[in-house]
């Protein structure tokens, strides 16, 4: 499924913070987790994850440290900070309001949408 760019941008921060809240991780693993959690329906452009992680690091929401991978290569690990936890909680509240409102709108739309179409006999 293709997602609108703005929607991806808006949801990426809470998603990454949420995944890091599960425990320390690194870039590729975060991305795999996103694919896994969404059942493959959500796929990001891989490269875009890194500027986002760096922004979160600059804002102090995550801390990064260099370690080594199983193959012995340099790997940058990210962990969430207390400030990141706070930001995540705040985002969570905002998103649940948005999801809630959208739910209502979908219901309302479903309840009222089909009727005019059939009543007028146009379609």
């Amino acid at each position, binding site marked *: 499924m293709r997602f609108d760019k703005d929607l991806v941008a808006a949801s990426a921060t809470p998603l990454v913070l949420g995944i890091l809240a599960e425990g320390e991780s690194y870039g590729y693993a975060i991305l795999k987790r996103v694919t896994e959690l969404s059942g493959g329906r959500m796929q990001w452009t891989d490269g875009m994850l890194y*500027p986002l992680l760096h922004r979160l690091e600059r804002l102090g929401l995550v801390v990064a440290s260099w370690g080594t991978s199983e193959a012995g290569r340099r790997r940058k690990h990210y962990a969430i900070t207390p400030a990141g936890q706070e930001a995540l909680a705040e985002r969570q509240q905002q998103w649940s309001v948005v999801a809630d409102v959208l739910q209502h709108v979908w219901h309302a739309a479903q309840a009222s949408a089909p009727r005019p179409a059939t009543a007028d006999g146009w379609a």
Partner: protein
Amino acid sequence: MAGPHERLEAQIDQWRSYVQRRRAISAADVDEMEDHLRGRVADLVATGLDDDEAFLVAVRRMGNLDAVSREFAREHSERLWKQLVLVPEAPGHDAPGPTWRELAVVLALAVGAGVAAKVGLATIHEDTALLRNLPLLTAPFLAAYFAWKRRVPWRVLLALLVPYAVLAVVLNVYPYDTGGSTVLLAAIHAPVVLWALVGVTYVGGRWRAQEPRMDFARFTGELVVYVTLLAIGGGVLLGLTGATLSLVGVDIEPAMEGWILPFAVPGAVVVGAWLVEAKQDVVENIAPVLTRVFTPLTLVMLLVTLVVLLTAGDLAGADRELLILMDAILVLVLCLLLYSVSARDSLARAGWFDGLQLALVVAALAVDAVALTAMLTRIAEFGLSPNKAAALGLNLLLLVHLGRSGWLLLGFVRERRPFGALTRWQTRFLPVYAVWAALVVVAFGPLFAFA
């Protein structure tokens, strides 16, 4: 890793060098992305693809490199400082023209600033009036350069004209007492206001944005470096010429005062600004070195000052000039701090240099506290004068600025806060100085009866 994956290794190497060419992406970022690429390739190979196919898919999944590097650029503007523009301009959107055209504009503006200075010198004969008006006459040429270079919209320029006109009117219409201190204060503070106006043109009118403000702080630091270099070079050249000419009985002094300095000084500033814009790569290597050399030296100087002040005894009776000098020292410390903050990679870990900087800020705060006490006792004893009010105001601003900087720096050194917090505090506080300077220029005259 020779053998079966040799081809893959070669491809990854090639990809690395291709990515590394983007200036917004640092070597560490490439390492990070390479780790990602390898992870993706390994997973794809595990699903049955061969190395070539897996590599192609993995690179494709990484995304359009232009777009990715633009995202990196947005996040790491300090890396792109050397590239002049944050995002490469779209083709068809013609750039400010070839280099020779820019050079022509710069030279014309430099000569224009010189002519303005010369006209000022020829028509204004009173010293303080000259001091008040020379920055007013020359600043527009520097602003014009940035207005041209950044294509500042007309409405921004018109909006800038208003404070400029107010400044010009206030400086020339107020019935200042010649030889009084309000006139000198106005003359000293007006350039700060003018510099803020130049800053608005430098950031292309986006004066609310925080990031460009840091660029302007960086620019100011580098401009000082360049103008100093130009001044030293020019001084040596003039000294040698003067010495040679004096041997054949020609005195260079009148030409020096009448023509060379009025053209050379404003011209050097405009040309210096152009050099900073054009040759940022060079200075980029100097800035961190300069701050690393001068931070420890300044710390020593501050400690010596502090010890001398504390052992000097009664500071209320201390010379007024001492307090003014201390303000100057603190402003210098602040400039140094700002310059090093602007040149630092915001993602780098806290190191010994940050500790040193914290020590510098703490020492400056101690000096500031001593200066403030001395100032307050003087005010209690002799009453408030325009000079004391200006010095006190500046001192309080410095106290707030340095105090919070120290607090944020402490948080950063203890790894409780990101470096970005310190950067944001600097850029947020900078306009306060311009406002204070404007207040001194506009209000101090009437408040103190133009004494």
